[in-house]
Structure formats: C-alpha cells, structure tokens
C-alpha cells in the first residue's frame, strides 16, 4: 500500500461525506425548479443536518438497544459502500475487502437493520414501511446483482476497481449489453433510493410512503445519521453507475496528476446525473405499490437480457 493509495482512499471517503448532502441538495433544487416551485438553497441538507445534530433526541418508551444502534450501523454500511466504489481513483486499498457482490450485501445489511429498527418500536407505520421496503428490496437486489454481473462478464472480474480499470483504459468499444444493463440500473436505483416512480422522498402522506414511514419515529442525531446515510446511498449509487457506464476520467494507480483532474470530471458527471434524475422524477408519476413488482421485474429481465446478449455477441 503506497502513501498515494492511502491518500486517494482518504480523499474518496471525505469527498463522499462532504459531497453526498450536496448532491441531494442539487437534485432537490432542480426538482423544485422543474416543478415551478421556489427552490431551496443548495446547502439546505447541511443546514438540516446541523439543526438535527444540535437537538435533543427523543426515544420511544419501548425502544430497544437495536433501535438506538441501527442508525450507526446503517451509516457505516453506506460509508463503506462509498469507500469501495472507485470514484476518483482505482487505487483504493480498501477495495480488496469487498467486491461487487459484497457491495450488494452491504446495501442488504443496511436494509435489514432499518427494517428491524422500524418494527422495533411497534408503530403501525413502521411495520408497514418495513414490509414495503422488503417487497422492493427482494426484487431490486437480484436485478442489481445481474447488472453488476453484466459488467463483470465483460471485464472477467467482480472487483469494482478492476471493472472500472478495464472499462476505462482498454480500447474504446461499444457494448450493447451495457445498454440494457444501464436501463436496468436506472430503474433499480430509482427504486432503491426511494425516488418518484416507486416512492416519494418528500412525501408525508402516510399511506404512500416507504422510506419515510420507516424513519418516522427517529429524531435528532439518529434522524440526522439516517438522512445522511440516505444521501450517501444516493451518492454511492450515482458513483457506481458513473463508474460502470461512464468510466472515463477515473485516475489510475500512481498518477497524482490524474487524481487532481478526476475531481472536476466527477463533479461534472454528478451534476449532469443529478439533473437527469430530477427530470425523470418530474416526468413520471408515482406508481401504485402493486405495480412496483412489475417495474422491478422488468429491470431484472432487462439485466438478464444484457447477460444473454453478452453471451450471444461474444465478449470483446
């Protein structure tokens, strides 16, 4: 492990922590603008976090220790996920710890804990949200795995850094299977990040919410951690998508100059991606919950189709 590797790992972590709320703020701002509302400031998520961290936490009377520890577990899961996805550089000392399959496992672990915590205090909305989250999760996970396998099949590795390295630095080629996987990935990330066709992150209408219903009982620093974890998850998904489908600009090992250049490139890509997310959210209407399995089933089938096309057309 070189000092440059450690530096880029540290940089990736700090950047994820700092940029994740900014990305959420950026998406919210564009969404408000596109819907003809007056937009909140770009720094609104930071103000929110600041406010929540300074409040006194109120616990439900029957809350167990699981309820108290869950936010910390979820937050660290998301942080680790951000650490192993190559955002700026592929020279990440932490990345051998977890490959693409373990990444999906990390998200699953966070999901299990948030659902358990939601059911822990025993309110009706918590259990309702947890059930719905599980309904979304068990369909989204296989689809996400298949998308990652599409990329793995092309690059013959499940390690995220190797995937990005191979895709970014080999001779430019068009992979039709990545087109299918890209569509599937977009659908999965919309569902996983509680975005509009599946769930509305801003809703407080009790009967339709999924993610909000689960964190309804949380307050103060626990809520802040969960909100931050949600931003980190969005950031992780965006970076994973950018890394697999638009890998250009990610720095290789032992190139400090490229590392400097990688940051503005990443910011540019995230800005475009966030804007497109806001456009998708504005253009689509929220689905009935019973349509969600169909939506995610389609995503799964598309990613399987990607694998099949890969087999038919031969790996480049």
């Amino acid at each position, binding site marked *: 492990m070189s000092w440059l590797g450690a530096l880029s790992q540290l940089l990736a972590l700090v950047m994820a922590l700092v940029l994740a709320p900014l990305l959420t703020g950026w998406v919210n701002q564009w969404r408000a603008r596109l819907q003809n509302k007056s937009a909140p400031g770009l720094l609104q998520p930071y103000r929110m976090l600041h406010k929540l961290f300074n409040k006194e936490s109120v616990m439900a009377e029957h809350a167990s220790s699981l309820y108290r520890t869950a936010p910390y577990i979820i937050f660290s899961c998301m942080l680790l996920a951000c650490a192993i996805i190559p955002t700026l550089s592929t020279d990440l000392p932490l990345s051998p710890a977890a490959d693409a399959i373990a990444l999906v496992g990390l998200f699953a672990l966070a999901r299990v804990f948030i659902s358990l915590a939601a059911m822990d205090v025993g309110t009706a909305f918590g259990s309702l949200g947890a059930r719905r989250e599980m309904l979304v999760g068990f369909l989204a996970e296989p689809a996400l795995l298949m998308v990652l396998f599409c990329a793995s099949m092309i690059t013959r590795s499940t390690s995220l850094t190797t995937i990005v390295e191979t895709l970014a630095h080999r001779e430019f080629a068009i992979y039709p299977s990545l087109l*299918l996987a890209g569509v599937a990935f977009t659908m999965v990330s919309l569902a996983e990040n509680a975005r509009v066709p599946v769930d509305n992150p801003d809703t407080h209408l009790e009967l339709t919410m999924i993610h909000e219903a689960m964190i309804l009982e949380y307050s103060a620093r626990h809520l802040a951690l969960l909100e931050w974890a949600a931003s980190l998850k969005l950031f992780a998904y965006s970076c994973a998508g950018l890394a697999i489908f638009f890998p250009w600009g990610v720095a290789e090992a032992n190139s400090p100059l490229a590392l400097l250049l990688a940051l503005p490139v990443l910011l540019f890509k995230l800005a475009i991606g966030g804007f497109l997310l806001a456009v998708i959210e504005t253009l689509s209407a929220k689905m009935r919950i019973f349509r969600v399995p169909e939506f995610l089933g389609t995503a799964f089938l598309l990613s399987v189709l990607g694998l*099949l096309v890969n087999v038919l057309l031969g790996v480049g």
Partner: protein
Amino acid sequence: MIVKFAPQLINLFATLILLLSFAMISQRRIVTLINLFMIQGATLVAASFLLGYATNQPDLYVSGALTLVLKVIFIPWMLHRVIRKLNVRWDVETLLNVPTVMLVGIGLVILAFSLALPVSRLSSSLAGGSLGIALACILLSFMMMITRSKAVPQVIGFLSMENGLIFAATAVTNGMPMIVEFGIALDVLVGVLILGVFMFQIREKFDTLDIHNLEALKED
C-alpha cells in the same frame, strides 16, 4: 472511423430493437405503442443505412429509405388516424400478468439465441451475430400478437414482426434482392390498409375492438 465501429454499432442497434420489442410487450397505452413502433422502425432504418455504408452496397440505402417512408412515416400516421377516428386513442388495455409474459419472453430469447448461435458462426457477413437478436424479435412480436386481445396492438405486433424479418434479412445476407424488398413492402402496405378496414368493420359490428367477439360463430 465509422467503418471500424460498424459491427459494434450494428449490434447496438440490434439490441435497441430487442429492447423496444420488450417495451412493446409490456406497454398498455395504444398511443405509446404506436410511438414505440415508430422508434423501432427508425432504428431499423439507421441500421440499414449504416450497413449499406459499411459494406458499400447502395441497395441497402433503397431498402432503408423504403422502411423510412413506410414504417416510420406512413403507417404510424395512418394508425394514429385510425385510433383517432375509432376514438380509442387513450385506451388502456388490461394486460394479463405482465411479469409472466416477460418471463416467457426471456425463454423465447434464450431459444432464439441458442438456435442462432451455430448459424451465425457460419455467416461471414458483418453483422452475423445479430441474427439471434432478429430471431428473438420475431418470436417476441409473435407472442405479442397471441397475448393481445385488442385489434390495434395485434396489427402493431404483426408490423413489428415484419421489422424483425427485415432486420434478419439485412443482418445475415446484407440485403435481399430489390424485387423481393419491394414485394414485401407492398405486402405490408396492403396488409395494413386491409387490417385498417377490418378494424372499422369490427368496431361497427361489436362496438369494441376486442377480437374475442370473433370467436363465437353466431350471436347468442
């Protein structure tokens, strides 16, 4: 530059056509269905032009232009007119169990791919690999005709199957003889015109476009 990437681009277009076939299977709204069919036609046109340019065969330009005029401009325009006149423009078809249909679709794709793999190894053409995709599109459109109960989606299924056929012919043989192309184009045109008349007749007789009404021999 373009010639270097031509095989990859053809494969990309083939995948797009397949993606659109799947989108059509799961689409409930008739207007969107027609628009999807139009996009599929446009992709086919792009693929023929590209293949014509890459292999230096002017025949394929004519074939592409024919597809452009018929499948991207004329037939969608006519279908839009028909659904406006029949007042089914905003019709939403209740599909039976989309996930099951999609699963069967994946099965069909696997079947088509495994059938086409040995054949495409023999083909020396630029885009031999996409034979399997073309075959899958044909089977998927076929399934769409079977699963739909309204007349307009069935017609679109028929036309989309024809798209798959043309693509298969273009991909494997680098284009059919011109006279055959013209024959097929004329067939499709006449077919659509006749089916259009049929739709009006079905509507007049039963007040609906649901073709289940045609299954009974006499009215009860």
